Protein backbone atom coordinates (compact mmCIF):
# COMPACT_ATOMS: atom_id res chain seq x y z
CA UNK A 1 0.00 0.00 0.00
CA UNK A 2 2.84 2.31 0.81
CA UNK A 3 4.51 1.60 -2.48
CA UNK A 4 1.28 2.30 -4.31
CA UNK A 5 0.84 5.65 -2.71
CA UNK A 6 4.38 6.62 -3.39
CA UNK A 7 4.09 5.74 -7.04
CA UNK A 8 0.89 7.69 -7.36
CA UNK A 9 2.48 10.48 -5.41
CA UNK A 10 5.22 10.46 -7.97
CA UNK A 11 2.81 11.27 -10.78
CA UNK A 12 1.90 14.92 -11.30
CA UNK A 13 -0.20 16.21 -8.43
CA UNK A 14 -3.03 17.39 -10.60
CA UNK A 15 -3.56 14.06 -12.21
CA UNK A 16 -3.68 12.06 -8.99
CA UNK A 17 -6.47 9.47 -9.04
CA UNK A 18 -9.31 10.30 -6.61
CA UNK A 19 -8.86 7.08 -4.63
CA UNK A 20 -5.48 8.10 -3.28
CA UNK A 21 -6.98 11.35 -2.04
CA UNK A 22 -9.27 9.45 0.26
CA UNK A 23 -6.79 9.32 3.16
CA UNK A 24 -6.37 13.06 2.74
CA UNK A 25 -10.06 13.64 3.15
CA UNK A 26 -10.33 11.17 6.00
CA UNK A 27 -7.58 12.90 7.88
CA UNK A 28 -9.12 16.26 7.30
CA UNK A 29 -12.50 15.02 8.49
CA UNK A 30 -11.05 13.29 11.50
CA UNK A 31 -9.16 16.37 12.61
CA UNK A 32 -12.12 18.64 11.97
CA UNK A 33 -14.26 16.23 13.95
CA UNK A 34 -11.84 16.46 16.86
CA UNK A 35 -11.99 20.24 16.76
CA UNK A 36 -15.79 20.20 16.57
CA UNK A 37 -15.95 17.59 19.32
CA UNK A 38 -13.75 19.58 21.67
CA UNK A 39 -15.75 22.72 20.99
CA UNK A 40 -18.99 20.84 21.62
CA UNK A 41 -17.57 19.42 24.84
CA UNK A 42 -16.60 22.85 26.08
CA UNK A 43 -20.00 24.22 25.15
CA UNK A 44 -21.70 21.35 26.96
CA UNK A 45 -19.48 21.98 29.96
CA UNK A 46 -20.59 25.57 30.29
CA UNK A 47 -24.25 25.00 29.47
CA UNK A 48 -24.46 22.18 31.98
CA UNK A 49 -22.77 24.17 34.73
CA UNK A 50 -25.03 27.12 34.01
CA UNK A 51 -28.17 24.98 34.11
CA UNK A 52 -27.08 23.21 37.27
CA UNK A 53 -26.43 26.49 39.06
CA UNK A 54 -29.78 28.03 38.14
CA UNK A 55 -31.75 26.81 41.17
CA UNK A 56 -29.64 28.86 43.53
CA UNK A 57 -29.74 32.00 41.44
CA UNK A 58 -33.48 31.80 40.96
CA UNK A 59 -33.99 31.16 44.66
CA UNK A 60 -31.66 33.79 46.06
CA UNK A 61 -30.83 36.05 43.14
CA UNK A 62 -27.34 36.80 41.89
CA UNK A 63 -26.87 39.75 44.23
CA UNK A 64 -27.90 37.92 47.38
CA UNK A 65 -25.73 34.99 46.47
CA UNK A 66 -22.71 37.16 45.84
CA UNK A 67 -23.01 39.80 48.54
CA UNK A 68 -24.60 38.12 51.51
CA UNK A 69 -22.41 37.16 54.43
CA UNK A 70 -23.92 33.84 55.48
CA UNK A 71 -22.80 30.43 54.32
CA UNK A 72 -24.65 27.82 56.40
CA UNK A 73 -25.56 24.92 54.10
CA UNK A 74 -27.60 22.98 56.65
CA UNK A 75 -29.83 26.00 57.18
CA UNK A 76 -30.12 26.60 53.46
CA UNK A 77 -28.23 29.87 53.64
CA UNK A 78 -25.94 30.47 50.71
CA UNK A 79 -24.35 33.89 50.77
CA UNK A 80 -20.94 33.60 49.20
CA UNK A 81 -19.46 36.93 50.30
CA UNK A 82 -17.05 35.44 52.89
CA UNK A 83 -15.80 33.01 50.25
CA UNK A 84 -15.34 35.70 47.63
CA UNK A 85 -13.56 37.94 50.10
CA UNK A 86 -11.33 35.03 51.13
CA UNK A 87 -10.48 34.29 47.51
CA UNK A 88 -9.66 37.92 46.77
CA UNK A 89 -7.66 38.48 49.96
CA UNK A 90 -5.50 35.37 49.57
CA UNK A 91 -4.92 36.08 45.87
CA UNK A 92 -4.09 39.69 46.69
CA UNK A 93 -1.52 38.63 49.27
CA UNK A 94 -0.13 36.17 46.74
CA UNK A 95 0.33 38.96 44.21
CA UNK A 96 1.96 41.35 46.71
CA UNK A 97 4.52 38.74 47.69
CA UNK A 98 4.86 36.66 44.55
CA UNK A 99 5.09 39.25 41.79
CA UNK A 100 8.03 41.32 43.10
CA UNK A 101 9.99 38.15 43.78
CA UNK A 102 9.16 36.65 40.39
CA UNK A 103 9.99 39.85 38.51
CA UNK A 104 13.22 40.27 40.45
CA UNK A 105 14.27 36.77 39.53
CA UNK A 106 13.30 37.34 35.89
CA UNK A 107 15.36 40.55 35.74
CA UNK A 108 18.28 38.97 37.50
CA UNK A 109 18.33 35.90 35.30
CA UNK A 110 18.04 37.81 32.02
CA UNK A 111 20.09 40.92 32.77
CA UNK A 112 22.53 40.31 35.57
CA UNK A 113 23.27 36.64 36.11
CA UNK A 114 26.48 35.19 34.73
CA UNK A 115 25.72 33.36 31.51
CA UNK A 116 26.52 29.99 32.99
CA UNK A 117 24.07 30.43 35.86
CA UNK A 118 21.12 31.42 33.67
CA UNK A 119 19.95 28.00 32.55
CA UNK A 120 20.17 26.35 36.00
CA UNK A 121 18.42 29.27 37.67
CA UNK A 122 15.64 29.17 35.10
CA UNK A 123 15.14 25.45 35.58
CA UNK A 124 15.16 25.75 39.36
CA UNK A 125 12.48 28.42 39.36
CA UNK A 126 10.44 26.32 36.95
CA UNK A 127 10.73 23.31 39.22
CA UNK A 128 8.60 25.21 41.73
CA UNK A 129 5.73 24.49 39.36
CA UNK A 130 6.44 20.76 39.43
CA UNK A 131 5.53 20.43 43.10
CA UNK A 132 1.88 19.38 43.34
CA UNK A 133 -0.62 21.53 45.15
CA UNK A 134 -1.32 18.90 47.80
CA UNK A 135 2.39 18.71 48.64
CA UNK A 136 2.53 22.47 49.18
CA UNK A 137 -0.47 21.99 51.43
CA UNK A 138 1.26 19.26 53.41
CA UNK A 139 4.33 21.43 53.79
CA UNK A 140 2.20 24.41 54.75
CA UNK A 141 0.37 22.51 57.47
CA UNK A 142 3.37 20.93 59.12
CA UNK A 143 6.14 23.44 58.44
CA UNK A 144 4.91 26.92 57.50
CA UNK A 145 2.07 27.25 60.00
CA UNK A 146 3.99 26.27 63.14
CA UNK A 147 7.27 27.94 62.08
CA UNK A 148 5.74 31.24 61.10
CA UNK A 149 3.28 31.61 63.95
CA UNK A 150 5.64 33.40 66.35
CA UNK A 151 6.72 35.78 63.60
CA UNK A 152 3.11 36.47 62.67
CA UNK A 153 2.22 37.10 66.30
CA UNK A 154 5.11 39.51 66.68
CA UNK A 155 4.13 41.28 63.50
CA UNK A 156 0.51 41.43 64.56
CA UNK A 157 1.41 42.84 67.99
CA UNK A 158 3.89 45.36 66.65
CA UNK A 159 1.88 46.63 63.72
CA UNK A 160 -1.52 46.09 65.27
CA UNK A 161 -2.39 49.75 64.72
CA UNK A 162 -2.52 49.23 60.94
CA UNK A 163 -5.99 48.08 59.90
CA UNK A 164 -6.27 44.35 59.12
CA UNK A 165 -3.10 43.43 61.00
CA UNK A 166 -3.90 43.36 64.70
CA UNK A 167 -5.41 40.75 66.92
CA UNK A 168 -4.56 37.19 67.75
CA UNK A 169 -3.06 34.93 65.14
CA UNK A 170 -4.88 31.76 64.11
CA UNK A 171 -2.76 28.84 62.95
CA UNK A 172 -4.23 28.47 59.50
CA UNK A 173 -5.10 31.89 58.09
CA UNK A 174 -5.39 34.19 55.06
CA UNK A 175 -1.73 35.11 55.19
CA UNK A 176 -0.47 31.52 55.11
CA UNK A 177 -2.87 30.78 52.27
CA UNK A 178 -1.61 33.82 50.37
CA UNK A 179 2.00 32.91 51.01
CA UNK A 180 1.53 29.40 49.61
CA UNK A 181 -0.26 30.85 46.60
CA UNK A 182 2.61 33.30 46.12
CA UNK A 183 5.02 30.39 45.90
CA UNK A 184 2.75 28.65 43.43
CA UNK A 185 2.44 31.63 41.07
CA UNK A 186 6.14 32.56 41.10
CA UNK A 187 7.11 30.13 38.32
CA UNK A 188 4.43 31.28 35.88
CA UNK A 189 4.94 35.00 36.55
CA UNK A 190 8.71 34.58 36.35
CA UNK A 191 8.54 32.59 33.11
CA UNK A 192 6.40 35.13 31.29
CA UNK A 193 8.35 38.06 32.70
CA UNK A 194 11.56 36.44 31.49
CA UNK A 195 10.14 36.11 28.00
CA UNK A 196 8.96 39.69 28.01
CA UNK A 197 12.23 41.07 29.35
CA UNK A 198 14.21 39.01 26.87
CA UNK A 199 12.48 40.80 24.00
CA UNK A 200 13.66 44.25 24.98
CA UNK A 201 15.73 45.38 21.98
CA UNK A 202 19.42 45.18 22.62
CA UNK A 203 19.85 48.65 21.09
CA UNK A 204 17.77 50.20 23.83
CA UNK A 205 19.89 48.60 26.47
CA UNK A 206 23.15 49.37 24.75
CA UNK A 207 22.07 52.93 24.23
CA UNK A 208 21.40 53.30 27.93
CA UNK A 209 24.73 51.76 28.84
CA UNK A 210 26.54 53.89 26.29
CA UNK A 211 25.08 56.98 27.90
CA UNK A 212 26.83 55.95 31.08
CA UNK A 213 23.93 54.32 32.85
CA UNK A 214 24.69 51.75 35.49
CA UNK A 215 23.18 48.29 35.09
CA UNK A 216 20.27 49.15 37.37
CA UNK A 217 19.66 52.43 35.57
CA UNK A 218 19.65 50.52 32.32
CA UNK A 219 17.02 48.17 33.75
CA UNK A 220 15.00 51.04 35.14
CA UNK A 221 15.14 53.21 32.04
CA UNK A 222 15.30 50.79 29.15
CA UNK A 223 13.98 47.44 30.30
CA UNK A 224 11.17 48.19 32.70
CA UNK A 225 9.27 50.82 30.69
CA UNK A 226 9.45 48.59 27.67
CA UNK A 227 8.19 45.46 29.40
CA UNK A 228 5.73 47.05 31.81
CA UNK A 229 2.66 45.88 29.96
CA UNK A 230 4.00 42.37 29.58
CA UNK A 231 4.87 42.12 33.25
CA UNK A 232 1.41 43.35 34.21
CA UNK A 233 0.01 40.63 32.00
CA UNK A 234 2.22 38.07 33.72
CA UNK A 235 0.99 39.25 37.10
CA UNK A 236 -2.61 38.94 35.97
CA UNK A 237 -2.03 35.40 34.73
CA UNK A 238 -0.56 34.63 38.13
CA UNK A 239 -3.65 36.12 39.73
CA UNK A 240 -5.85 33.88 37.60
CA UNK A 241 -3.89 30.89 38.76
CA UNK A 242 -4.12 31.96 42.41
CA UNK A 243 -7.87 32.47 42.32
CA UNK A 244 -8.57 28.95 41.15
CA UNK A 245 -6.03 27.08 43.24
CA UNK A 246 -7.81 24.64 45.50
CA UNK A 247 -6.15 21.94 47.49
CA UNK A 248 -3.18 23.72 49.05
CA UNK A 249 -5.39 26.58 50.18
CA UNK A 250 -8.04 24.23 51.55
CA UNK A 251 -5.45 22.78 53.88
CA UNK A 252 -4.14 26.07 55.28
CA UNK A 253 -7.00 28.58 55.16
CA UNK A 254 -8.93 27.48 58.25
CA UNK A 255 -12.19 26.63 56.48
CA UNK A 256 -14.31 29.09 58.40
CA UNK A 257 -16.95 30.84 56.25
CA UNK A 258 -16.54 34.21 57.91
CA UNK A 259 -14.79 37.43 57.06
CA UNK A 260 -11.87 37.66 59.44
CA UNK A 261 -10.90 41.00 60.91
CA UNK A 262 -7.21 40.57 60.16
CA UNK A 263 -5.10 38.81 57.58
CA UNK A 264 -4.03 36.47 60.36
CA UNK A 265 -7.57 35.21 60.88
CA UNK A 266 -9.22 32.12 59.43
CA UNK A 267 -11.28 32.30 56.31
CA UNK A 268 -12.47 30.28 53.37
CA UNK A 269 -12.21 30.49 49.59
CA UNK A 270 -14.58 29.63 46.77
CA UNK A 271 -12.43 26.78 45.53
CA UNK A 272 -11.92 25.36 49.01
CA UNK A 273 -15.62 25.34 49.78
CA UNK A 274 -16.31 23.35 46.64
CA UNK A 275 -13.62 20.83 47.48
CA UNK A 276 -14.90 20.41 51.03
CA UNK A 277 -18.60 20.34 50.43
CA UNK A 278 -19.43 18.81 47.11
CA UNK A 279 -19.51 15.35 48.59
CA UNK A 280 -22.24 16.49 50.95
CA UNK A 281 -24.25 18.26 48.32
CA UNK A 282 -25.09 15.23 46.19
CA UNK A 283 -28.69 14.91 47.28
CA UNK A 284 -29.48 18.52 48.12
CA UNK A 285 -30.20 20.31 44.88
CA UNK A 286 -29.88 23.83 46.28
CA UNK A 287 -26.59 23.11 47.99
CA UNK A 288 -25.24 21.52 44.84
CA UNK A 289 -26.41 24.46 42.80
CA UNK A 290 -24.76 26.83 45.27
CA UNK A 291 -21.42 25.06 44.91
CA UNK A 292 -21.67 25.07 41.14
CA UNK A 293 -22.57 28.73 41.32
CA UNK A 294 -19.44 29.24 43.43
CA UNK A 295 -17.54 27.45 40.67
CA UNK A 296 -19.10 29.76 38.10
CA UNK A 297 -18.21 32.88 40.09
CA UNK A 298 -14.69 31.53 40.36
CA UNK A 299 -14.64 30.86 36.67
CA UNK A 300 -15.95 34.31 35.76
CA UNK A 301 -13.30 35.87 38.00
CA UNK A 302 -10.52 33.88 36.32
CA UNK A 303 -11.99 34.64 32.90
CA UNK A 304 -12.00 38.38 33.50
CA UNK A 305 -8.51 38.28 34.94
CA UNK A 306 -7.16 36.16 32.10
CA UNK A 307 -8.84 38.44 29.60
CA UNK A 308 -7.10 41.47 31.07
CA UNK A 309 -3.85 39.54 31.21
CA UNK A 310 -4.08 38.64 27.56
CA UNK A 311 -4.81 42.23 26.68
CA UNK A 312 -1.62 43.37 28.40
CA UNK A 313 0.51 40.60 26.98
CA UNK A 314 -0.82 41.18 23.49
CA UNK A 315 -0.22 44.88 23.78
CA UNK A 316 3.36 44.31 24.74
CA UNK A 317 3.75 41.87 21.88
CA UNK A 318 2.33 44.40 19.47
CA UNK A 319 4.66 47.00 20.84
CA UNK A 320 7.52 44.60 20.25
CA UNK A 321 6.38 43.83 16.75
CA UNK A 322 6.41 47.55 16.00
CA UNK A 323 9.77 48.39 17.39
CA UNK A 324 11.80 45.23 17.10
CA UNK A 325 13.88 45.36 13.95
CA UNK A 326 13.89 42.44 11.55
CA UNK A 327 15.76 39.50 12.91
CA UNK A 328 15.84 40.74 16.45
CA UNK A 329 12.58 39.21 17.58
CA UNK A 330 12.76 36.07 19.66
Amino acid at each position, binding site marked *: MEAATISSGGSPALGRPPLS*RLPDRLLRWALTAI*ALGVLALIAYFFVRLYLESRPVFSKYGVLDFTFKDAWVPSKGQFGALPLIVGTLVTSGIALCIGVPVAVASALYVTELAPARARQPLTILVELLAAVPSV*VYGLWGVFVLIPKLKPAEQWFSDTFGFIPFFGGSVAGPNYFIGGLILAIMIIPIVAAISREVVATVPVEHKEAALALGATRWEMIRMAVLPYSKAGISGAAMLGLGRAIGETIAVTLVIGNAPEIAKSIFGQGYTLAAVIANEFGEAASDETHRAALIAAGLVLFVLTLVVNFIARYFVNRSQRAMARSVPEGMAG
Partner: protein
Amino acid sequence: MSALAAVAPRRRRADRVMRSLLLAGTLLALVPLVAVVYYLLKQGAGALSWSFFTSDPTGRFLGDPGGVRSAIVGTVLIVALASAIAVPLGIGLALYLVEYGKASRFANVVRYFVDVMTGVPSIVFGLFIYIVLVLSGIGGNFAGWKGSVALALLMLPVVSRSAEVVLNLVPDSLRESALALGAPRWRVLTRIVLPTALPGLVTGSLLAVARGAGETAPLLFTAFAVNTTTWNLGSQMNSLPIQIFNDVRQAQANIVERAWGAALTLVGMILVLTLLARLIQRRSRLA
Protein backbone atom coordinates in the same frame (compact mmCIF):
# COMPACT_ATOMS: atom_id res chain seq x y z
CA MET B 1 31.46 64.89 30.60
CA SER B 2 30.84 66.26 34.02
CA ALA B 3 27.91 63.88 34.41
CA LEU B 4 30.30 60.97 34.40
CA ALA B 5 32.17 62.33 37.35
CA ALA B 6 28.93 62.76 39.24
CA VAL B 7 28.00 59.15 38.52
CA ALA B 8 30.18 57.73 41.06
CA PRO B 9 29.13 57.44 44.69
CA ARG B 10 25.38 57.79 44.85
CA ARG B 11 24.46 56.15 41.62
CA ARG B 12 26.91 53.36 42.10
CA ARG B 13 25.51 52.72 45.52
CA ALA B 14 21.97 52.65 44.13
CA ASP B 15 23.18 50.27 41.47
CA ARG B 16 24.77 47.96 43.98
CA VAL B 17 21.74 48.02 46.25
CA MET B 18 19.30 47.27 43.46
CA ARG B 19 21.46 44.54 42.01
CA SER B 20 21.70 42.81 45.34
CA LEU B 21 17.95 43.23 45.80
CA LEU B 22 17.32 41.49 42.48
CA LEU B 23 19.70 38.73 43.49
CA ALA B 24 17.96 38.47 46.85
CA GLY B 25 14.61 38.18 45.08
CA THR B 26 15.96 35.35 42.94
CA LEU B 27 17.32 33.50 45.93
CA LEU B 28 14.08 34.14 47.80
CA ALA B 29 12.18 32.47 44.98
CA LEU B 30 14.32 29.39 45.48
CA VAL B 31 13.88 29.22 49.25
CA PRO B 32 10.52 27.42 49.08
CA LEU B 33 11.88 24.89 46.61
CA VAL B 34 14.84 24.11 48.83
CA ALA B 35 12.65 24.07 51.93
CA VAL B 36 10.03 21.78 50.39
CA VAL B 37 12.63 19.35 49.09
CA TYR B 38 14.49 19.45 52.39
CA TYR B 39 11.42 18.64 54.45
CA LEU B 40 10.25 16.03 51.96
CA LEU B 41 13.56 14.24 52.33
CA LYS B 42 13.78 14.77 56.06
CA GLN B 43 10.24 13.67 56.91
CA GLY B 44 9.53 11.43 53.96
CA ALA B 45 12.69 9.39 53.51
CA GLY B 46 12.17 7.69 56.85
CA ALA B 47 8.78 6.43 55.70
CA LEU B 48 10.15 4.79 52.58
CA SER B 49 10.78 1.10 52.84
CA TRP B 50 10.12 -2.00 50.83
CA SER B 51 6.81 -2.58 52.58
CA PHE B 52 5.83 1.06 52.07
CA PHE B 53 5.66 0.39 48.33
CA THR B 54 4.35 -3.15 48.50
CA SER B 55 1.54 -2.95 51.03
CA ASP B 56 -1.84 -1.26 50.88
CA PRO B 57 -3.09 1.21 53.45
CA THR B 58 -4.70 -0.93 56.14
CA GLY B 59 -7.17 1.74 57.16
CA ARG B 60 -6.68 0.49 60.70
CA PHE B 61 -6.96 3.22 63.26
CA LEU B 62 -4.44 1.84 65.72
CA GLY B 63 -1.22 0.11 64.80
CA ASP B 64 0.33 -0.23 61.37
CA PRO B 65 -1.22 2.17 58.84
CA GLY B 66 0.31 0.27 55.91
CA GLY B 67 1.89 1.60 52.73
CA VAL B 68 0.78 3.21 49.51
CA ARG B 69 0.81 0.47 46.89
CA SER B 70 -2.81 0.99 45.90
CA ALA B 71 -2.21 4.72 45.58
CA ILE B 72 0.77 4.26 43.27
CA VAL B 73 -1.04 1.74 41.09
CA GLY B 74 -4.09 3.99 41.00
CA THR B 75 -2.13 7.09 40.05
CA VAL B 76 -0.27 5.27 37.28
CA LEU B 77 -3.43 3.76 35.79
CA ILE B 78 -5.60 6.86 36.10
CA VAL B 79 -2.94 9.12 34.64
CA ALA B 80 -2.15 6.62 31.87
CA LEU B 81 -5.76 6.53 30.75
CA ALA B 82 -6.07 10.30 31.08
CA SER B 83 -2.99 10.71 28.86
CA ALA B 84 -4.33 8.20 26.36
CA ILE B 85 -7.38 10.44 26.02
CA ALA B 86 -5.82 13.88 26.26
CA VAL B 87 -2.62 13.45 24.23
CA PRO B 88 -4.11 12.17 20.94
CA LEU B 89 -7.03 14.57 21.19
CA GLY B 90 -4.83 17.50 22.09
CA ILE B 91 -2.34 16.85 19.31
CA GLY B 92 -5.18 16.19 16.86
CA LEU B 93 -6.74 19.48 17.81
CA ALA B 94 -3.45 21.32 17.39
CA LEU B 95 -2.92 19.64 14.00
CA TYR B 96 -6.31 20.84 12.90
CA LEU B 97 -5.63 24.38 14.08
CA VAL B 98 -2.20 24.60 12.48
CA GLU B 99 -2.73 22.65 9.28
CA TYR B 100 -6.36 23.22 8.38
CA GLY B 101 -8.07 25.78 10.55
CA LYS B 102 -5.26 28.35 10.49
CA ALA B 103 -6.73 31.82 10.89
CA SER B 104 -10.29 30.91 9.96
CA ARG B 105 -13.08 32.19 12.15
CA PHE B 106 -13.95 28.71 13.40
CA ALA B 107 -10.35 27.95 14.30
CA ASN B 108 -10.13 31.19 16.24
CA VAL B 109 -13.25 30.36 18.17
CA VAL B 110 -11.86 26.92 19.03
CA ARG B 111 -8.53 28.46 19.99
CA TYR B 112 -10.24 31.02 22.20
CA PHE B 113 -12.29 28.45 24.07
CA VAL B 114 -9.37 26.10 24.54
CA ASP B 115 -7.56 29.06 26.09
CA VAL B 116 -10.54 29.69 28.31
CA MET B 117 -10.41 26.04 29.40
CA THR B 118 -6.90 26.54 30.76
CA GLY B 119 -8.35 29.08 33.17
CA VAL B 120 -10.96 26.73 34.60
CA PRO B 121 -9.99 25.75 38.15
CA SER B 122 -9.30 22.04 38.42
CA ILE B 123 -11.91 21.56 41.12
CA VAL B 124 -14.60 22.66 38.67
CA PHE B 125 -13.66 19.83 36.31
CA GLY B 126 -14.07 17.43 39.20
CA LEU B 127 -17.45 18.90 40.01
CA PHE B 128 -18.52 18.66 36.38
CA ILE B 129 -17.54 15.00 36.02
CA TYR B 130 -19.20 14.24 39.35
CA ILE B 131 -22.47 15.64 38.04
CA VAL B 132 -22.27 14.23 34.54
CA LEU B 133 -20.73 10.80 35.12
CA VAL B 134 -21.06 9.90 38.80
CA LEU B 135 -24.51 11.13 39.81
CA SER B 136 -25.98 9.84 36.57
CA GLY B 137 -24.64 6.39 37.48
CA ILE B 138 -23.15 5.68 34.03
CA GLY B 139 -21.06 2.52 34.41
CA GLY B 140 -21.40 2.33 38.17
CA ASN B 141 -20.75 5.09 40.66
CA PHE B 142 -17.25 6.24 41.49
CA ALA B 143 -14.68 4.81 39.10
CA GLY B 144 -11.05 5.25 38.18
CA TRP B 145 -11.89 6.02 34.57
CA LYS B 146 -14.12 8.89 35.61
CA GLY B 147 -11.15 10.39 37.41
CA SER B 148 -9.17 9.91 34.21
CA VAL B 149 -11.76 11.81 32.21
CA ALA B 150 -11.66 14.69 34.69
CA LEU B 151 -7.86 14.77 34.47
CA ALA B 152 -8.00 14.54 30.69
CA LEU B 153 -10.23 17.63 30.56
CA LEU B 154 -7.57 19.45 32.52
CA MET B 155 -4.68 18.16 30.42
CA LEU B 156 -6.28 18.59 27.01
CA PRO B 157 -5.80 22.36 26.69
CA VAL B 158 -2.26 22.11 28.02
CA VAL B 159 -1.32 19.48 25.44
CA SER B 160 -3.05 21.27 22.62
CA ARG B 161 -1.54 24.66 23.37
CA SER B 162 2.01 23.39 23.57
CA ALA B 163 1.49 21.20 20.48
CA GLU B 164 0.23 24.19 18.53
CA VAL B 165 3.30 26.18 19.40
CA VAL B 166 5.59 23.35 18.34
CA LEU B 167 3.73 22.59 15.11
CA ASN B 168 3.88 26.24 14.19
CA LEU B 169 7.65 26.09 14.47
CA VAL B 170 7.86 23.52 11.67
CA PRO B 171 8.96 25.66 8.75
CA ASP B 172 6.42 26.08 5.99
CA SER B 173 9.16 25.54 3.45
CA LEU B 174 9.32 21.89 4.53
CA ARG B 175 5.60 21.44 3.93
CA GLU B 176 5.68 23.31 0.67
CA SER B 177 8.58 21.38 -0.79
CA ALA B 178 6.97 18.07 0.11
CA LEU B 179 3.68 19.15 -1.42
CA ALA B 180 5.48 20.41 -4.46
CA LEU B 181 7.01 16.99 -4.90
CA GLY B 182 3.46 15.70 -5.14
CA ALA B 183 3.11 14.12 -1.71
CA PRO B 184 -0.48 14.09 -0.51
CA ARG B 185 -1.31 16.19 2.49
CA TRP B 186 -1.70 13.29 4.95
CA ARG B 187 1.75 12.01 4.07
CA VAL B 188 3.19 15.45 4.52
CA LEU B 189 1.66 15.53 7.96
CA THR B 190 2.67 12.05 9.04
CA ARG B 191 6.09 11.97 7.37
CA ILE B 192 7.30 15.54 7.58
CA VAL B 193 5.39 17.64 10.09
CA LEU B 194 4.86 15.20 12.93
CA PRO B 195 8.36 13.68 12.92
CA THR B 196 9.93 17.13 12.82
CA ALA B 197 7.80 18.30 15.70
CA LEU B 198 7.94 15.03 17.59
CA PRO B 199 10.40 15.89 20.37
CA GLY B 200 8.49 19.07 21.10
CA LEU B 201 5.21 17.19 21.13
CA VAL B 202 6.60 14.61 23.51
CA THR B 203 7.95 17.32 25.79
CA GLY B 204 4.64 19.14 25.88
CA SER B 205 2.75 15.93 26.52
CA LEU B 206 5.08 14.81 29.28
CA LEU B 207 4.72 18.15 31.02
CA ALA B 208 0.95 17.84 30.79
CA VAL B 209 1.17 14.31 32.21
CA ALA B 210 3.33 15.60 35.06
CA ARG B 211 0.77 18.29 35.72
CA GLY B 212 -2.07 15.79 35.73
CA ALA B 213 -0.28 13.35 38.01
CA GLY B 214 -0.11 15.87 40.82
CA GLU B 215 -3.73 16.98 40.67
CA THR B 216 -5.95 16.15 43.61
CA ALA B 217 -9.12 18.10 43.11
CA PRO B 218 -10.45 16.36 39.96
CA LEU B 219 -10.14 12.95 41.64
CA LEU B 220 -11.86 13.82 44.91
CA PHE B 221 -15.35 12.65 44.05
CA THR B 222 -14.74 10.86 40.76
CA ALA B 223 -12.20 8.11 41.38
CA PHE B 224 -12.91 8.54 45.10
CA ALA B 225 -10.66 6.31 47.21
CA VAL B 226 -10.21 2.75 48.35
CA ASN B 227 -7.53 1.05 50.39
CA THR B 228 -7.02 -2.13 48.42
CA THR B 229 -5.05 -2.27 45.20
CA THR B 230 -7.19 -2.61 42.13
CA TRP B 231 -6.22 -2.82 38.46
CA ASN B 232 -9.80 -2.26 37.47
CA LEU B 233 -10.42 1.22 36.15
CA GLY B 234 -14.12 0.50 36.43
CA SER B 235 -14.05 0.54 40.22
CA GLN B 236 -13.16 3.09 42.89
CA MET B 237 -9.46 3.76 42.96
CA ASN B 238 -6.89 5.18 45.27
CA SER B 239 -4.31 7.70 44.09
CA LEU B 240 -1.26 9.35 45.60
CA PRO B 241 -2.63 12.90 45.77
CA ILE B 242 -5.84 11.72 47.46
CA GLN B 243 -3.88 9.53 49.85
CA ILE B 244 -1.76 12.52 50.83
CA PHE B 245 -4.79 14.80 51.09
CA ASN B 246 -6.51 12.34 53.42
CA ASP B 247 -3.41 11.64 55.49
CA VAL B 248 -2.48 15.29 55.99
CA ARG B 249 -5.62 15.81 57.99
CA GLN B 250 -4.89 13.04 60.46
CA ALA B 251 -3.41 13.62 63.85
CA GLN B 252 -1.62 10.30 64.33
CA ALA B 253 2.11 10.61 63.75
CA ASN B 254 2.49 7.39 61.76
CA ILE B 255 -0.21 8.42 59.29
CA VAL B 256 1.31 11.86 58.85
CA GLU B 257 4.62 10.14 58.19
CA ARG B 258 2.95 8.16 55.43
CA ALA B 259 1.72 11.44 53.93
CA TRP B 260 5.32 12.68 53.75
CA GLY B 261 6.48 9.42 52.24
CA ALA B 262 3.70 9.49 49.67
CA ALA B 263 4.49 13.13 48.86
CA LEU B 264 8.16 12.28 48.34
CA THR B 265 7.14 9.45 46.03
CA LEU B 266 4.77 11.66 44.05
CA VAL B 267 7.25 14.51 43.70
CA GLY B 268 9.88 11.98 42.64
CA MET B 269 7.62 10.63 39.90
CA ILE B 270 6.75 14.10 38.66
CA LEU B 271 10.36 15.22 38.76
CA VAL B 272 11.41 12.28 36.61
CA LEU B 273 8.73 13.15 34.04
CA THR B 274 9.67 16.82 34.07
CA LEU B 275 13.39 16.19 33.70
CA LEU B 276 12.74 13.66 30.96
CA ALA B 277 10.69 16.27 29.15
CA ARG B 278 13.46 18.87 29.47
CA LEU B 279 16.05 16.39 28.32
CA ILE B 280 14.11 15.57 25.17
CA GLN B 281 13.55 19.25 24.59
CA ARG B 282 17.24 19.95 24.92
CA ARG B 283 18.36 17.24 22.57
CA SER B 284 16.10 18.47 19.85
CA ARG B 285 16.25 21.94 18.49
CA LEU B 286 13.90 22.73 15.71
CA ALA B 287 16.15 24.09 13.04
